[in-house]
């Protein structure tokens, strides 16, 4: 059972899909109706078209994966042969779990860790590694929800993201778990205010988004209604349009009033100010992190840059007349800049001015075979 402790982190965390059914008297797997209830706590699984939950696992530790006849409950030893509708909840069958955990937290029959029934979460992904990572990230995202606005500069924010990623990685791969948990706890304590504030902000944003969508929907509906009315009614079209306009104006003014009332509590104005306050308080010490100056590419070539300057006012230049007078910039499409062409011309005007004629002695020809023959032969 090397993987025993792998999923210990799931303790106390539930993804509840089916509602409160722990007390459901029908949730024993020996009774056939359990198979068809999707309201048990384990009921979030894949359903076939008839609405039945097909084979599906909730797990504590990874043990049984293959839906084969060999699957066996390690607790009561019943298997698929004896009970074809057996539902394995990874370490034990559903009935065992029901039996063991109905009276609240109880030790796991295999590893003796104290567990709750709620600790079993439904499986979404076939790969348990993915499942675990998703759960870890869900948990991490809840606590590490700082944003760029909460930091003074990008550098700090990136460091923070790096930390978060490290923690997530450690949790997923079981590296240094106690230390990592300690880190999380420390972070939690230090940033409780910002975390809760960000949660609020997220909620406010979600709410605002929802409202906006609702608004758009209503807007569309009104439009539709108006068109319908114009289609069907016998009344004067102008009157109908005017009426709908009045209604729209009423709606928008009501909306403005309500949003004003809300913004004081939930709106972004409050959040932003509060964050600003927090920010100045928490990161005052780090405020003056100097930006590393940009160092351009350095090489060992001398580009004659001091031998010429491109005249700031440009030149009286016949060749670039057309380009410079091109009002629409069609000729300059693609970023053509006449200054660069001038620069190149000036550079080649001064490049190699001082280079003397090559010196050649016939002795060199011996050491340097002509590649002439090579070309001739190769063809």
């Amino acid at each position, binding site marked *: 059972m090397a993987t025993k402790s792998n999923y210990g982190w799931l303790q106390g965390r539930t993804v509840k899909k089916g509602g409160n059914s722990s007390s459901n008297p029908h949730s024993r797997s020996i009774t056939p109706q359990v198979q068809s209830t999707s309201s048990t706590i384990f009921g979030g699984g894949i359903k076939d078209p008839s609405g039945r939950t097909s084979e599906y696992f909730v797990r504590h530790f990874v043990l049984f994966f293959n839906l084969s006849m060999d699957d066996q409950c390690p607790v009561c030893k019943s298997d698929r042969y004896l009970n074809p509708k057996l539902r394995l909840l990874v370490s034990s069958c559903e009935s065992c779990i029901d039996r063991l955990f109905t009276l609240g937290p109880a030790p796991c029959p295999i590893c003796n860790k104290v567990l709750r029934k709620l600790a079993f979460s439904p499986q979404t992904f076939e790969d348990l590694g993915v499942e675990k990572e998703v759960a870890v990230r869900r948990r991490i995202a809840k606590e590490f929800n700082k944003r760029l606005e909460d930091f003074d500069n990008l550098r700090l924010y990136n460091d923070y993201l790096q930390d978060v990623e490290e923690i997530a990685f450690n949790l997923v791969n079981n590296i240094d778990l106690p230390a990592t948990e300690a880190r999380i706890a420390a972070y939690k304590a230090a940033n409780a205010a910002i975390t809760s504030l960000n949660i609020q902000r997220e909620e406010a944003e979600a709410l605002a988004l929802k409202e906006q969508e609702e608004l758009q929907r209503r807007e569309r509906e009104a439009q539709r209604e108006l068109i319908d009315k114009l289609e069907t009614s016998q009344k004067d079209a102008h009157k109908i349009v005017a009426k709908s306009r009045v209604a729209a104006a009423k709606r928008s003014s009501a909306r403005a009033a309500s949003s004003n009332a809300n913004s004081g509590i939930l709106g972004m104005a409050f959040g932003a100010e509060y964050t600003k306050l927090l920010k100045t308080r928490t990161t005052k010490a780090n405020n003056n992190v100097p930006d590393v100056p940009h160092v351009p590419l350095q090489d*060992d*070539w*001398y*580009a*004659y840059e*001091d*031998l*010429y*300057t491109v*005249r700031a006012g440009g*030149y*009286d*230049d*016949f*060749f670039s007349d057309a380009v410079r007078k091109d009002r629409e910039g069609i000729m300059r499409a693609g970023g053509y800049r006449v200054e660069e062409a*001038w620069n*190149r*011309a*000036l*550079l*080649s*005007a*001064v*490049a*190699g*001015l*001082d*280079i*003397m*004629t*090559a*010196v*050649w002695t*016939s002795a*060199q*020809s011996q050491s340097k075979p*002509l*590649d*002439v*023959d090579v*070309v*001739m032969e*190769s*063809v």
Partner: protein
Amino acid sequence: MPSVDNNASPPSTKKPLYEASTQFKNWRYSPDHLAHIRSTLNEAAVGVIRKTFEAYEPGSSSNVSFVTADEEHLLVTFYIHKIGQLCGHFRFPEEVEATAASYLKRFYLKNTVMDWHPKNVMLTALFLATKTTNNPISLDAYTSHIPNTIASDVLDLEFLVAQSLRFEFAVWHAHRALWGIWLDIQNLPNTPPDFAKTESAIYDSALTHVRAARLTDAEFIYTPSQIALACISLVAPDLANQWLESKENTPIPESRVDIPPRPSSTAISASLEAIRNMITNSGKVPHVEAVREVDKRLKLCKNPEKVVGTKAYLARKAEAEKKAEEKRNKKVEGQKANDRDPFGQELGEPAAKPGLVDYDDESDDE
């Protein structure tokens, strides 16, 4: 072959950018060296072709008068001039013309006109230049404007040309340097503001000199800036001197210790003089009569292996095909040696195909 004053400069000095160019590294020669290359190339080619003649018709080479290195050069020069005409016809920019001319010149430092006639290579060099200088033209448009030319005439030689150029397509041109000097002269303190308009004749005639320089070996021996300056000094010597002196006297910024010394006008005056002489003496289009005479003789002494339809050509082709065939066979054998179905042995039906063959055989027998 770095120049003298570069050797003298301290090691911390940065190297000038021009010395990074392939033009400086691989296409810079002294006049003697050029002459040597051309004569040895000519000798080698004549030797090879003579052997080929003898191989197919013994004694036939004795009264062939092969073209000399100078005559080869004359022919090439003439076709550089032709490139200029073609570019005028196509309205290609100056850069294409200059690049194509450089390609043609460089090509004939590695090849001989007896193998590849410049009238064909010229077309390829020009087409290649349109591409390397980013002035592309479709092959159809290109060949349809040139009489008696089809696409394969241009493309067949393309790789050969590129290979002979060592795939070094970037060329530093004198006409660009001339433009740069012309712009920079406007920066001289005593230049009148309307100088470029009133004195544009200077630029125009300097440009004709640059074009004339294209017919000479100047670009193999001197740098583009020197050629451009010499061209200006042919028209307006004072102006050229003024500009050069201004460059010579540009103070080196105190913060810079890593730059080479300024160009010295006394040091390069000899080069400028030589370029001027070269342009006035040899910057001319060869006489058509002389070219025609060389061309007539070239027809007789072309490498028979490269002339379509001759015995030697056919023999060489047959040999090449034989070699290719051998190579293919070798490849097939090599494959057979480890010839196993990549998908493994067939399952179940072992001899499905042999069975078919047997069946055929039987029916044949009947």
